[in-house]
């Protein structure tokens, strides 16, 4: 097999975005400007300028991280993100927890997709998502083997050499002993394989639901058609929309409720999804292991614009996060943008009078 170097892969697909996440996020930010219930303490800036002011954020797309093992690719990335951030980017992608074959598979499939992982379950950036991805690959390997064995059996059944029996039907063919042994073996092995997988699954369930440690931060996420209201609880609480900023390395408790219909909160790189259901409060724990921007999207059909109900989780270094949080909690200062809006609003009022 002739595998192309990974950095060539990256440029292969027509869809592989130049600015991918940055672009999406900017769109998101723009959308928030129109979002209802916008709270006072909020400030909105373009992602580039924000990044420039917050050099601690290692802004990168997961796509480039997984597929860019060499200098050449870092140059690629150079063009994508502001200079101020570049020196802080990790120069080499870190080792994955799962098997190297998984890497190959991901790379191979990237041939088709152009770019994997803007919000990918196969691109984990937290312990929880790591566990889920590892479990997924284990299941895939075991069940893929089962599929291969079954297909091999079928192929052999069709092609094996037969004695000179004619085509006439046999109403009562003798039941052969080897076939009975094969049957027993099949029954036993499938029971063993399934039990093994079930035990692995229970183990995985323990890991993702079982963490009882106190969370450093509690955030309420309230689903609306079709946006996310984010409320930082506690003293000096504040609200944002469609964006959650969290500190890297500490568990964050997310309380999920909905204001209207059922939604589902899903940031694949950080955790599995959990529904937001009327009359019920679900709790999800996320913890990013690295700084970065992680996209998510409502995963339960929630009406007309379900497709556009995206959310971004920005994981910041703890001190950056604290600075941002303090900014948010402080009384609102009129920014250039807000001033402009005020002028615009008064112009509207005047014209309507």
């Amino acid at each position, binding site marked *: 097999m002739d595998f192309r170097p990974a950095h060539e892969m990256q440029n292969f697909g027509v869809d592989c975005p130049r600015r991918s996440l940055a672009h999406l996020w900017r769109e998101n930010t723009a959308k928030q400007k129109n979002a209802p219930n916008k709270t006072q303490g909020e400030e909105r800036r373009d992602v580039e300028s924000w990044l420039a002011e917050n050099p601690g954020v290692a802004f990168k797309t997961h796509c480039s991280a997984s597929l860019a093992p060499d200098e050449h690719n870092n140059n690629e990335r150079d063009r994508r993100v502001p200079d101020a951030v570049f020196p802080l980017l990790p120069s080499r992608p870190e080792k994955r927890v799962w098997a190297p074959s998984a890497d190959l598979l991901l790379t191979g499939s990237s041939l088709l997709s152009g770019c994997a992982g803007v919000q990918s379950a196969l691109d984990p950036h937290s312990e929880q998502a790591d566990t889920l991805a590892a479990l997924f690959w284990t299941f895939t390997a075991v069940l893929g083997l089962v599929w291969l064995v079954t297909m091999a059996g079928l192929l052999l059944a069709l092609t094996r050499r037969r004695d000179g029996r004619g085509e006439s039907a046999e109403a009562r063919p003798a039941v052969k002993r080897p076939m009975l042994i094969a049957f027993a073996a099949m029954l036993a092995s499938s029971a063993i394989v399934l039990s093994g997988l079930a035990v692995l*699954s229970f183990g995985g369930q323990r890991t993702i639901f079982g963490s009882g440690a106190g969370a450093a931060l509690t955030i309420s996420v309230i689903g609306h058609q079709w946006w996310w209201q984010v409320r930082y609880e506690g003293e000096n609480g504040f609200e944002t929309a469609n964006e959650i900023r969290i500190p890297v390395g500490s568990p964050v408790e997310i309380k999920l409720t909905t204001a209207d219909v059922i939604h589902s909160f899903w940031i694949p790189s950080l955790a599995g999804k*959990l529904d937001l259901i*009327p009359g019920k409060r679900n709790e999800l724990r996320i913890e990013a292991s690295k700084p970065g921007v992680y996209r998510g999207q409502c995963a339960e059909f929630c009406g007309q614009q*379900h497709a556009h109900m995206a959310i971004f989780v920005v994981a910041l270094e703890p001190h950056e996060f604290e600075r941002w949080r303090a900014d948010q909690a402080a009384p609102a200062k009129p920014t250039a943008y807000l001033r402009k809006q005020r002028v615009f609003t008064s112009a509207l009022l005047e014209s309507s009078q």
Partner: protein
Amino acid sequence: MSPVIEERHETRDSDLGDEELRARLSKTWGTTGGLIGVLSTVDHKVIGIRYAVTAFIFLLAGGVLAIIMRLQLARPDSHLVGAELYNQLFTMHGTTMMFLFGVPVGEAFAIYLVPLMVGTRNIAFPRLNAFSYYVYLFGGLMLWGGFALSIRPDVGWFSYVPLANLDFTPGKGPDYWAQMITFTEVAALAVSVEIIVTVLKQRAPGMTLDRIPLFVWTMLVHSFIIIFAMPAVMLASSMLIMDRLVSTQFFNADAGGDPLLWQHLFWFFGHPEVYIIFLPGTAFVSAIVATFSRRPVFGYLPMVLSLIAIGFLSFGLWVHHMFVTGLPEVGAAFFTASSMAIAIPNGVQIFCWIATLWDGKPVLKAPLIFVLGFFFIFVAGGLSGVMLASVPIDTQTHDTYFVVAHFHYVLIGGTVFPLVAAVYYWFPKVTGRLMDEQIGKWQFALAFIGFNTAFFPMHLLGLYGMPRRVYTYPAEMGWGGLNLLASAGALFFFASFLLMLYNMVISARSGPPSGDNPWDADTLEWATSSPPQPQNFDRIPFVTSGSPLWSQGDDTPVVSGLKVDERELVVTSITEARPDIREESPAPSIWPFLAAFATAVAFIGSIYTPWAITWGSPVVAILLVAWFWPKTTEENA
């Protein structure tokens, strides 16, 4: 007519020679012409074909919707159809495929084939059978008529509340959807009752429980699943309509209701529904594998036990559709175990079929080729189902394209490929002509490649984070390439059905005559002429083996003593199939059609006013009285 009046009731089949018996029976059991005659028929074969044709039309309609969706998704940020229309399209696609194609098409084959396979002259409760068809037809017409008139449900085939509540979806769409459920479920329940009674009480003498063809066993289990599963969804959809029409608050959390109640009721039906759709597929596979391997399916007893196990287990899995609603950990784990457990009886079935092919001498005709496609696709879909059974994995894959890929592998691989095989296999039974083999092989190539190209990439899309039911996606997500590939595959897959349609049309006109038993198969439906006479069998066969046509040869013993000029059946005992009594089978009647029509009017009216039920019920009751009005014939001897 030669027989005198007094003798009419006396003529028995033993009194007549073969030619005259056939002519007389065919007159007794035949369907009269004219519009009234067509609407009055109670012949299970005629109704079975109507069911099948209607279901195929809905399959094509659902397929067209799928193609429009695939064209929309082929490119990112596409504006081919807007959000509103797209949501209507996937709702109608799912609803049509599940309720108007998936369930009825299995019933169609059961209605046509089960009475033939058990060696009887008509299905049990034939008028109910006619009624069920019209109810199904009216339900489908209502949903699609509403669609044409822009009354379009757009909240998914699962209609989750509160999205489907009046507050969030004010139009009449969800009401049409919910009422359509009532229609198709009434039809499905009726058919299930008929199949169960036919199988248990009308088997040919000598067809003991262990000589019932696996096809018939499968349809029996299938019918029991319907009877236990469907009431849940009828209840749920009625509660939804009541919430919407008369402000009951079953699903309103603010008023003490519970949106999760809907999900429990819906999936308590919804998961068995998967098996309701899939089991007919296994029935086809069992029949075809046996015929083309030239021997009965290996392991009759394990096969039957697996079917029954699937029937029971299918009711213990529904919560795996709700793993991300925030369930208690242990509760969810239970459903992981039960969902994985059902892989065992399914594995037993797969093993037995492959063992049959191994031991036998497979003849690679079109039906068997499609069955081989079934193995390839269905096994993959079943195994990805094991992944979804795991709670942790499901939290990542739930409601993504991974699930879309999974259930299309299971349902298309498990049902549609065997269904196409079944069409090729039983087409000569129905028409007396063979379908074109060569076109069949081209169709397979197109379907197999098209299907895998369309649906395999969806696994990857799901893992790369693409949720279901999104009408578009930004180019930056990088999903464009795989989606384009999937759309291209979908076009090929759709084309394969057009090719089949073409093959069916030309073969029905000018295909080579098949003879009565073109595949040298072993089950009783091939013991009669192709196409069968209205009476199915001139003389009811007496069964002495599980493969009667292979072990008994031409000199099959027969049962004699049935009246010729009246519709008479042999009723046998449940386990041993000993002849019990002769029972009269109902004659054609227009009342079932009228009753179905009145029921449809009442149901549709109830979407607009609850009073429609009040006014409609007496009308339906009067029609039912007319339907059941006792005839002045003398009691059977």
